[in-house]
C-alpha cells in the first residue's frame, strides 16, 4: 500500500516537473525566477531583440 501511494506521488512530481520545464523551454510557463520579474512569461522571454539579428 505504502509503495503505491509513494509511487503515485513521485510519478505526479515527475510529470509536474517535466511539464513545467517544457513550458519554460517553450517560453509560456510560469515565471519561476522567484522574484521581481514581470511574470507574464509569454512575452518575458520573447525575442523582440535577439542580438544575432541586430546588425553591427
Amino acid at each position, binding site marked *: 500500500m*505504502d*509503495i503505491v*501511494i*509513494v509511487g503515485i*506521488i*513521485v510519478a505526479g*512530481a*515527475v510529470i*509536474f*516537473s517535466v511539464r*513545467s*520545464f517544457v513550458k*519554460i*523551454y517553450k*517560453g509560456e510557463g*510560469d*515565471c*519561476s*525566477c*522567484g*522574484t*521581481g*520579474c*514581470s*511574470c*507574464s512569461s509569454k*512575452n*518575458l*522571454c*520573447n*525575442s*523582440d*531583440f*535577439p*542580438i*544575432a*539579428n*541586430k*546588425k*553591427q
Partner: protein
Amino acid sequence: MGIAIALAGNPNSGKTTLFNALTGARQHVGNYPGVTVEKKEGKYSDDIGEFNIVDLPGTYSLTAYSMEEVVARDYLVNEKPAMVVDIIDASNLERNLYLCVQFLEMGMPVTIALNMMDVANKRGIEIDHKKLSKLLNIPVVPTIARKGHGKKKLLQAIAAKSESNIEPLKISYGQDIDTALDEMEDMIKSSGFLTNRYNARWTAIKYLENDGQVKELGSKGDKNLDLQLETIVEKVTKHLAATLDTHPEGMIADQRYGFINSILKQGIIKRYHDENRLQISDKIDKVVTNRFLGPIIMIAIIMGLYKFTFSYSEMPVSWFESFFGWLSGAVDSALPEGLLKSLIVSGIIDGAGGVLGFVPLIMFMFFGVSLLEDSGYLARMSFMLDRIFRMFGLHGSSVMAFIISGGIAGGCAVPGVMATRTLKSPKERLATLLTVPFMNCGAKLPVFALLIAAFFSENEAQMMLVITLIAWFGALIVARILRSTVIKGEATPFVMELPPYRMPTLKGILIHTWERTWQYIKKAGTVILGVSIIIWAMMTFPGLDENQSKLFEDQRAVITSQAGYAILSDIETLESDQLSAQASAVKDNLSRVDLDEAKAGLKNSIAGRIGTSLEGLTKFAGFDWRTNIALVGGFAAKEVVVSTLGTAYSLGEVDPEEKGSLSERLKSAEGWGPLTAFSLIIFTIFYAPCFVTVICIAREAGSWKWAGFSVVFNTVLAFGLSVLCYQVGSVIM
C-alpha cells in the same frame, strides 16, 4: 473590438504606472529609466468604451539606433493603433515634446497625457494645457498616474478623438532641407515608394536623417529611386557642411526643438523658480555621489541592508524552523514507519520546507531592494560605477542589469537578462548577458543564508557583503576576459537621465515586497516541491538489496541476543533517562546499526551513486557526494541545493526527535567546516545559471551557442575557483 491605444513616451515618465492604473495590472515600476523593456498588453472597459492598451518601451526619439525605438516605431507602423497616448513628464515638458513632435510627423493620432502634474507644481511650474492643446491641435489631458487622477478624462478624450483622420505635422527645417524634402516627397509619392508603410514626407526625413532601417527597406524596394534619393541627400549634406558647418541630421533635430520652443514661448509654461535651480534631489546628490563619500555611502547602504535583513529576520526564521521541526515530529508520530513517512518527513518537510524556512529573510531583503529601487538611488550607482565598468569592457547600463539580477542580493537573473536590452551595443550587451548570472539572485540567497548561519554566524552581514563583492569582481573580470577575446569591440556612448529621487510610498514597497515574496513561496511550493520529491525518490531507491539488508539484520540480531529479554523490554517501555547504563549502551549500539544501514542505503541509491561517482573530481573542492547531488539539482533552480541537503541529512538520521535545523546538522556533520562552506559558496556564485536563465540567455543572445557556453564556462570556472580556495585554504588552516 475595443479601441487600440498605445502608451508611448520618454523613459521614466510614468507609462507603466499609467498602464497599471488603467488596466489594474501590477507591472513592475521602478525609478530608473528603462524598466519596461518589452511591450505589455492589457484591457480596460467601462461605459466610455473598451480599450486594448499596449505599454511600449520608453524612448527619447524614434531613430533606428536602439532596439526599444525600433520596437516602438515598428509597432506604430505595423499595428496602426487608433491612438498613441504620449505620456509626458510635465516637469520636463520641452524634452518630452521632442518625441511627441516625431509622432506627429509620422502622422500618428496623438493624445498627450501630461503626467506628474503634482511634481511639476511642486517645482513651481504651471502649464497652460488648454493652450498647448490648441497650438498642437491634439488633446492634452493632465494626469497624476500615481494617484490615478485624470484617467477617465484621458479615455474620454481618446474615445472622442480616435476616429478622425490626421494630417502629418510639417515643420520647417530651414530652406535647404525644406526644398530637398519637397522634391523627395514628390518623387516618393509619384512612385508609391514604401507608401504602404510610411507617409512620404516621413520617409524623406528619415533618408535625410540617415536612418538605417528605412534606408535598408528602401534599397531592397526600389533600387533606382533609392539612388536618386541618396543623391539629393548627399547634395544637401555637402551644402550644409559648407555653409553652416552642420549636417542634415543635426539640423533637423535643432529645428524640431526650435518648433517646440516657438510653441512653449507663447506662454505655455509659467515658472516660479529658475529651471536649473537646485532641487532637493540635487542637494542629496551632492552628498550621495560625492567623490569620496559616494563610494563609502554605497557600501554602507548595502551593508546596512544586509545587517537589517540578517538581524531582523533571525527571530522569524527560527520560528519557521521550529514550526517545521514540530511538523515533522508530528508527522513522525502520526504515520507508521515506511516509505510514505520518509517521503513526507525527509523529502517534503526537510526538503521544500527548508526552502520555505527562509521566507522571512527573503522578505526583508526584498523590502530593502524595493525601497532602493523606488527611491531612484540605483541610477546613481550606474553613474558612479560607469567608469569602472568601462575599464572592464562593460557599460554604465550594465550596472542596472547586474543589480536586477541580484547585485544587491535578492534579484533574479531572468529579468536581469531582459534588462540588458537597455544596452545599445550588441557586444556590451552580450558581455553583460553572460555575466549577470554571477549575481546573487533570490534563489542563491537561501543557500548562502544556510551556510552563513551554520559556519559564519558571528559575522553574517559582513560575510554577505564579501559574497556580494566576490560576485561583482568575478563578473567584471570575466567580462574583461570575454571582451578582450571572444567579444571584442569598442565602448559605446553613455548618456542617461538621472531621475529625481522620489519618496517611495509604503504601500508601493509593500506591494513589491509581497509580490516577490509570493513568487518565492509559489516557486517553493511548486517547482522546488516537485524536484524535492524526485530527489527524495532518487535518494531512496533502489535501497539495499537483500544480502546487504541481511548484514544489518544479523548485526542487530547479535546485539539483541546478547542483551537478554529484560533489557530489551526496558528499552521498549522506559524513557531514555530511566534506562540502566547497560540498557543505554545496547540502545546506542542498535541505533548505530540503524544509522549505518540508512547511510548505506542512501549511498547505494541512484542519487548516491551519481554523487559518489563525481566525488573523485569534487573532493578537490571539498564536496562530498551529497553536495554533488545538491549542486546537480541546483541546475533546475538554485533553491534545490538547500532542499537536497535537507533531504540528504534527514535520510541519514535515525531519530527525528533529536535533530535540529539543517544548519545545526551541517555544523556537526563530518566533512563540513568553514572552508568547505566557503568553497561551496564560491561554487554557487559562479556555476551554471539555472535552467530558466539558460533558456533566456539563448533567446536573448539569439543562439544556443552562448547558452551552452555559459553553462560549460561558468561551471568550469566555478570548479576551478572552488578547488583553488579549498586547496589554498587547507594549506593555510
